[in-house]
């Protein structure tokens, strides 16, 4: 396999996983905020 192909493949794969993780983190923070707000009601 060419080096540059492998670099691009890994970068794409990591970018895709990072995007999913960041999306999940935003959703998690949203629900944490809702839960903490309700606890203080």
């Amino acid at each position, binding site marked *: *396999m*060419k*080096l*540059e192909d*492998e*670099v691009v493949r*890994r*970068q794409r*794969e*990591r970018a895709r*996983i990072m995007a999913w993780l960041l999306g999940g983190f935003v959703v*998690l923070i949203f*629900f*944490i905020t*809702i*839960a*903490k707000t*309700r*606890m203080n009601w």
Partner: protein
Amino acid sequence: MPAIELTNPAALPADWRDLFALTKPRVMYLVVFTGLCGLLAAPAMPPFVLGFTAILCIALGAGACGALNQWYEADIDAKMRRTAKRPLPAGRIDRQSALHFGVGLGVFSVLLMGLATNWLAAALLAASILFYVLIYTVWLKPRTAQNIVIGGAAGAFPPLIGWVATTGHFAPLPLLLFAIIFLWTPPHFWALSLFVRSDYAAAGIPMLPVVAGIENTRRQIFLYSLPMAAAAVAPWPLGLTGMAYGVSASVLSGVFIVLAARVLANRSTDPAQMAPEKKLFAYSVFYLFALFAVLVADRWLGA
């Protein structure tokens, strides 16, 4: 651009699978499970998302410990058959990436724990990560045969963190859970280190069988299993759990002591002849899972 053959994998961006392997996912199961049991045994239940986040943070903290441990011990891992294929000694990832990953994961897990639950739980999580990395990995492990005895405290934090994440304060039961794991760690690890001691000797790690000999280690395994069993049963007479837990803990601990006695009676120095040690090691993992599962079931049924 001319084609270049792939000769040095560490020069590439790390594969996500190797980053995942850095977190020692197989070790994480027990940490997550004991943390979850600490959380579920607490008298009040947090909202689901906060409980989930607390367990996620414990898992991420454990992952950070695994990554920083492998970063620090890459040269030692390369000398042991059991660990030579890990991403760092195998050259699939560079050390700086592993360090950044471990530190980032650790800081993230502590901050998220503080924001989602409370800062006492976050402080405990930070203390457990720092204890594992600095006290155990860097200081004790390469220097003393008592590394596992004191270092075992790092693995004992999760149920305490789970409880504090829910309640915001300490209580006798999670402190006993801490004591159980603390006392369980030496016989668990020494059983393993008996049949892989040549690996530890080759890597220059002063594990008890390497420094004090096989017979002495077998004696220590048996001696430690006695206070461990006492700590495991203690929540029952102290009125912190019901009879279901007390009877189960007595039976499970009794079997542990019998297996430890068989290890004590074994005279073989050949790893191939160490069936009692292998059996005790396997049972010790089952023991901790079963004990904590019974504890949660007892607390929920008795509630």
